Each structure stands twice: as C-alpha cells, then as structure tokens.
C-alpha cells in the first residue's frame, strides 16, 4: 500500500489525520490493514470514550459499599453477609433502529454477559426505551420489535425483566434508544475480573463460533445515521440466547472451581477489545493464534476474526495446567472452547495466522494513548427562549376530569403492562413487587435483605436543562427506591446524546454529567458503572439528551418492602414535601398543550435526602402502607396511580382542596410537577406516629384525605369511578400504538 492509500484506508476506518499520525508514531512504521483495523476499533468513540472520558472522570465513584467501581465489566456493591450486587446498563440504540428485534435482543445478551463475567448470576433485567411519536409510521413497528427482542432474549435466558421505562417524543423519530440493564448476585469472595496475568497462562476462547457479524459494528455505533445506513444492514447480528444460557451455566460452574485467572466477554469490537483490555489491565502481553479460533464460515481473514462482533463469546485466561479441566466443563455444556494463545510479559499483542505473525502491537501505548478530547462546548441558542413560557397564550380547560382521562391514557403515562406482560418478570421466584410500581422489589433467597431496582430519566427535562434534568434523574431513581423501602446503594448510567463534535451537544453532555455528579455527591450515591452512547442523531437532528440512571437499593429486611398501591379503604393520605408545582416542562404541557418549553422544576436535594430517609424509617417501622413519588403528570396522576395499582381492589381516594376559580392555578395543582413530593397512606391508628416522625425529621407533611372505595374524588374538581379510569389507563398504550 502506498502512503496515500494507507491514509485513505485509515480515513475509511474513521480515524482522523491526527489519530493516524499517532499510530505511525507509536509503531514507528506503517501499520498493516489488520493493525489499522484494530486501532480503529480500539480508538472508536464506542471503545475509547475519547469525547466523554474527561467529563466522566468528575463523577463520584467511591463509598464504603463500593467493591468495584467503573472500569470493569460491571460495578459491584456490598449488600452484607458476604454477598454483593453487580450491575450495569448499556445501550444498543443504533442496531435496534436498524433491526429492532435482533438489535434489542443482542443488547440484552451483551449486558447479561457483562454481569456474569463478574461471577454474578443475573437476577434481574431492566430496560429504558425511547421511541418517536406514537403516530410516526415506524414507531409501532419499532416498539413491537424491540419489546419482542428483549422478551425473547431475557425470557429464554430465564432472567426476569422486572422494570424499565418507556417514553415517546418526536425527537426520537429517527433514532430510538434501547438501554438494557442487568443486575446480578455474587458472593463477595467469588468476584472475577477481566485480567490476563501470569506468563504462560493459557488464553481460552469459548462460546459461539466467529462469523462475519457486525464487522463494522463498533464503528457503526459511533456513526451518525444517514440514508446509507441501509447498506450497513448485512452487519446485523442475530442473538442466540440458548447458547448464551449454556455459556452462563458453564461459566458459573467453572467459577466454582479454582481454575480461572480472568474472564471478559467479547462485546463491541469482539476479540480485539477483550484481549487488549485484559492485557492492559494486567500490564501483560498476549500471543494469540487466530487460526485456532472457531470459525462459522470458510475463508475468514485475521482482520475479520479480530473485528467480528459475533455474539455469545467469552475470552478467558486460565491457570496453566488446568486447561483440560476448563475445556471439560464447556464440553459438558456442548460449547466450543479452545486454547487460542497465552499470556506473555512483554506488553505486546502478537497475532499469528497459519504460523506467521500478522500483527504486532504494543498494548499500553495503544490503550493509554487512545485519543482523549476536550471538545468545545457551547450553550444552545434556544436554551433561554425555551425557558420562556407564555401561559397566557394557552387554552386551559376547566373540564379537569377529561384532562385527567386524556393524560392517564396518553402514550407516556398509560399502563406499561403491554410491555411487561411480554417479559417473564416472575421467573427465579424472587419478584416481590412486580413491574408497575415505583421500583421492582426482589427478595434474595436465604438472605433477610432484599433489593429494589429502578431506571429513570426525564428526557424532556434534560433537553430543557441538562444540568437540572440529570439531577432529576438521580433524584427520581433514589426516591423510587425509597418509596419501595430501599436505600440507594449506587447507580449505573447510560448517557445517550447526539454528535459530540457539535459544541451544543457537548455542552449538553458536560452539563448533564456535572448535574449528575452533583446530585450523586449530595445524595451520597456513587456511580459504579456506565456506558456512553453518542452520535444519536439522524440527518442532523439530535435526540433529547438522555442520561438514563439505573439504581439499586438495599432493603434491610424484605418483610418491610414498600409499594405504590393503596392497600385499604379508610387509610389516611398524606403529602410529603412542599415543593411548588409548576406547569413548565411538564407532561401536561407536552401532551395536552403540545408544547415542550419552560424550565424544569428546581430541586432541593437536601430535602430530597431527608424525605428518602424518612421513607426508609416509615417503612422499617411499618408506619405506612403505600408510598409513591409525584413525577410526570403531577399530583392527579400520582394519586390515580395509587388507586389504579390496587388492581382488583379498585380502591379510590377522596381529597379536598380549597375553592379556587383560577383555571390555570387549578391545573397547576392537579397536573403541575415538582420534586421532591411523595404521597403516602397509613392506617388511621398510625397517623400521629407518622406525623411525629415527620416533625422530628423536619419533613413537611400535609393531610390530603383518605383512601375510599370505587371513586377518585379530588374535590371540588374531579369525581371519577376508578373502574373507568382503569380501562383508559390499561388500554391506552396499545390503543395509541395501533392507531395510525
């Protein structure tokens, strides 16, 4: 290849001129095509985090409960009694847009591997989804495919999918988000890492054979969409959950023995990133014979083998002398497992093919010298004008019952049962609070403690104010846990943004990370793992920035778990918190008035922390029977949800407000948003203890009314049979999906 050709090829691999020069410097010679391919995937946005790293470093990652922070396949936190929880969230946005079923399925497969490589048995999945408007011609197809794909993979693996979120907005018309999260349980002394230590130790390849799947996958995930992405379609990967189930059981069986040094899944950039990352973490080298890699097709080249993104594969390093034992376990499970190389001590990656060395790369320089950019940031021009809200131009309706019905049946607030009914959410017999509540609650067999899990992000808030929006995401997640009687232990994030080369997008990113970090510090919730997905845009239109937060909380005694639904007629209903509701940035404004504007509500994090603590105490002492945070849709929606989730009981509520004639301010009371605010209900005999506890802790508490039967009455404005509301709420999601 001439120098010119080489430059051209580098460019086609998405390497900038500057990056190409750096390669020449590191190697002190021209790279061959294989080496260039390796550089390109290792230095892609997806693998190197080159645009985001500088900001991610600012997030708090430590705490006494943290066993493993960011940098490994998943984060790990201590839950006591020798046990720990490993968890992480990851995006599969672009592949899911191209092929929703397989894209979402393989996304689930990938995040599951991240967790079980740590030695953890996955016990729960969650998914956070963003689609375009319901009436967009592609939306229904995408929702169907994505949900089916998630169901297909998780159900077949036998891991319950217990929660998530699903939000529709036009900004996702050309670029959906599919973020998948897995939570696993691991014995503290059986945690595995992606290490390649010990000269001479065998490097073993296990799992599916390597095919030509997604050869440009890693670089594709960092590319903006344009019309030519249709042509990239043959790179679709097909998920094989059956093989992954065998891989899971075989790996966990192997991990009971003392044969392993390190293990890592082959995710994006497959064999390349797994081998380089393992060696890099250990400061070692690896020599691999690519001819030994199990191949699905004939005529594959070393380039294809190193860049393939075939699913359901793992790379591991075993203790020398135990390779036969390791291979035996995989044979029992009918899986391919082959020794493909060994650990060296010189810090080089040496790849052989049919006896010849075909690539020779220094690992540390390649990994450490990965580019890191401090990309320019600029506040978007429409930021301030977006905050302006001219309410006088809006037409407010005084038919509040109709507005409530409209909202409760809307795409963003209707019941998500259509989704989670397709997910096996009960397998493993741990699910105590099923999807539908603020957070899912899982018991842990043989332990007294349980956990609660949730994922949250208000994308609209983040668009209107990324700093505040990201804080809200952390706040809401922690509040959802507290409403379940759980104390937040740590979070994982999935930062979905547009093209970072645009200063406005980079600004959104920086602000969101700043806000998230600040909230984490104030609430003492460290970030232990995460994922960044950039270039989420089509033809220049970026998505609403979406820093999804996945959070795990600890319930010290599972008997004291909390849930959203009202439990008994006659119970008293209270409001905790006194943040003032506003219509700015609200779901009401977006759905009823079709306006995305206003500044998201300000957030008193200190008050939020106090309310979280209060809820924990209240649940521990069994002073309350339900708790539910007021989020999208405001008080009227939250109150409805407490009634609706009582399901067959069809409990209602009666609360009374003072007479008021100003339609706008009534609308604000009913549908305005503000955090932190929580609805709790308690038995009549516990009222005074509850009030006392609130006083002692400095929590504003207001009696709103009582749980009653059959009707939701918000005097003097709303009186509706809960059964009627139920039908609208229950049918809304599917109705919108099916309407053309």
């Amino acid at each position, binding site marked *: 290849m001439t120098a010119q050709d080489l430059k051209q090829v580098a460019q086609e691999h998405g390497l900038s001129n500057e990056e190409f020069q750096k390669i020449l410097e590191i190697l002190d010679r021209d790279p061959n095509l294989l080496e260039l391919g390796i550089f390109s995937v290792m230095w892609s946005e997806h693998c190197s985090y080159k645009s985001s790293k500088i900001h991610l470093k600012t997030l708090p990652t430590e705490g006494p409960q943290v066993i493993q922070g960011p940098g490994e396949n998943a984060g790990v936190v201590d839950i006591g009694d020798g046990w720990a929880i490993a968890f992480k969230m990851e995006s599969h946005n672009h592949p899911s847009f191209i*092929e929703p079923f397989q894209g979402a399925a393989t996304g689930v497969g990938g995040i599951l591997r991240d967790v079980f490589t740590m030695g953890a048995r996955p016990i729960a999945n969650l998914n956070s989804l963003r689609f375009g408007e319901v009436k967009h011609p592609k939306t229904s197809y995408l929702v169907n495919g994505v949900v089916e794909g998630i169901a297909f993979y998780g159900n077949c693996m036998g891991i319950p999918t217990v929660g998530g979120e699903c939000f529709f907005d036009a900004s996702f018309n050309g670029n959906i988000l599919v973020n998948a999260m897995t939570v696993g349980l691991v014995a503290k002394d059986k945690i595995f890492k992606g290490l390649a230590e010990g000269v001479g130790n065998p490097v073993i390849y296990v799992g599916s054979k390597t095919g030509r*799947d997604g050869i440009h996958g890693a670089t594709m995930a960092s590319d903006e969409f344009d019309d030519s992405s249709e042509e990239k*379609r*043959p790179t679709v*990967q*097909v998920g094989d959950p059956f093989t992954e189930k065998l891989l899971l059981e075989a790996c966990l069986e192997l991990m009971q023995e003392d044969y392993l040094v390190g293990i890592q899944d082959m995710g994006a950039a497959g064999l390349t990133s797994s081998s380089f990352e393992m060696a890099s973490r250990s400061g070692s080298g690896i020599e691999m014979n690519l001819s030994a890699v199990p191949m699905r*097709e004939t005529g594959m080249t070393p380039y294809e083998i190193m860049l393939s993104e*075939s699913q359901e594969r793992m790379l591991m390093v075993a203790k020398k002398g135990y390779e036969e034992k390791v291979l035996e376990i995989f044979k029992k499970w009918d899986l391919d497992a082959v020794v493909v190389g060994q650990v060296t001590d010189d810090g080089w990656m040496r790849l052989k093919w049919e006896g010849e060395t075909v690539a020779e790369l220094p690992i540390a320089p390649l990994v450490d010298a990965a580019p890191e950019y401090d990309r320019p940031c600029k506040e978007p021009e429409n930021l301030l004008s977006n905050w302006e809200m001219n309410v006088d131009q809006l037409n407010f309706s005084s038919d509040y019952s109709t507005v409530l019905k409209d909202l409760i049946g809307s795409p963003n607030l209707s019941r998500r049962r259509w989704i989670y009914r397709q997910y096996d959410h009960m397998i493993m017999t741990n699910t105590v609070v099923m999807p539908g509540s603020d957070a899912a609650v899982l018991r842990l067999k043989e332990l007294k403690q349980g956990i609660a899990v949730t994922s949250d992000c208000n994308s609209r808030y983040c668009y209107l104010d990324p700093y505040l929006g990201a804080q809200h995401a952390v706040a809401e997640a922690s509040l959802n846990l507290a409403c379940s009687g759980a104390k937040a232990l740590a979070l994982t994030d999935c930062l979905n943004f547009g093209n970072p080369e645009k200063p406005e997008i980079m600004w959104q990113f920086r602000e969101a990370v700043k806000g998230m970090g600040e909230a984490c510090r104030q609430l003492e919730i460290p970030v232990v793992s995460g994922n960044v997905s950039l270039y989420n845009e089509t033809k220049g239109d970026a998505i609403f920035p979406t820093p999804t937060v996945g959070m795990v909380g600890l319930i010290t005694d599972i008997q004291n778990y909390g849930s959203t639904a009202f439990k008994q007629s006659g119970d008293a209903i209270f409001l905790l918190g006194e943040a003032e509701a506003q219509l700015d940035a609200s779901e009401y404004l977006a759905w009823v008035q079709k306006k995305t504007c206003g500044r998201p509500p300000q957030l008193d994090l200190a008050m939020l922390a106090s309310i979280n603590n209060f809820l924990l105490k209240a649940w521990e002492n069994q002073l309350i029977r339900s708790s539910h945070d007021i989020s999208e849709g405001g008080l009227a929606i939250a109150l409805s949800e407490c009634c609706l989730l009582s399901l067959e009981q069809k409990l209602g509520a009666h609360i009374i407000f003072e007479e008021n004639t100003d339609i706008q301010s009534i609308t604000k009371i009913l549908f305005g948003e503000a955090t932190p605010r929580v609805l709790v209900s308690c038995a009549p005999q516990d009222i005074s203890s509850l009030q006392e506890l609130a006083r002692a802790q400095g929590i504003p508490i207001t009696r709103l009314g009582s749980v009653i039967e059959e009707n939701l009455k918000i005097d003097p404005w709303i009186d509706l049979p809960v059964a009627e509301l139920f039908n609208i709420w229950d049918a809304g999601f599917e109705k919108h999906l099916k309407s053309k």
Partner: protein
Amino acid sequence: MKAKVTVRLKSGVLDPQGRAVQHAAESLGLQGIQEIRLGKVFDIELETTDETEIEKILETLATKILANPVMENYEWEIIQS
C-alpha cells in the same frame, strides 16, 4: 390460484435454529450432514387468477411483511391449481 413464497436467511447470517437441528440430527446418529438452515414457506391462496396482479401482491407481501430485507432473501412462485 395458489402461490408460494419462500423466505431464507441470507448466507452468513447466524441461524441458531438450523444449528440446533443439526446438533439434534448428530445426536440421533445421522452422519454426514454438513449444514441445515431453516427458512419459512408461506402457502397463499388467492382469489384472482390474473398473474400480473398476483405478482404484484406477492412482491408487496414479500417485501413488506414476509421477509426482513436486513437479513432475509425471498423468492416466490405461482402454482396452478
């Protein structure tokens, strides 16, 4: 009139089902099977006998519903009844 549309995975696309069947065949003691790939066949009964109209229907069916162009190929034939 009858017609038949056959939909197959593109070559190179992983076919976990085909592989599982192949394994099962091996465990049954059947030897010499190099590959099994699984496709779908749609048997369609149509009112019209106009071949050009049928062709149009089958093309639309195949591209819009039956095959996923990202990973599948299709072919169709009209069967005289």
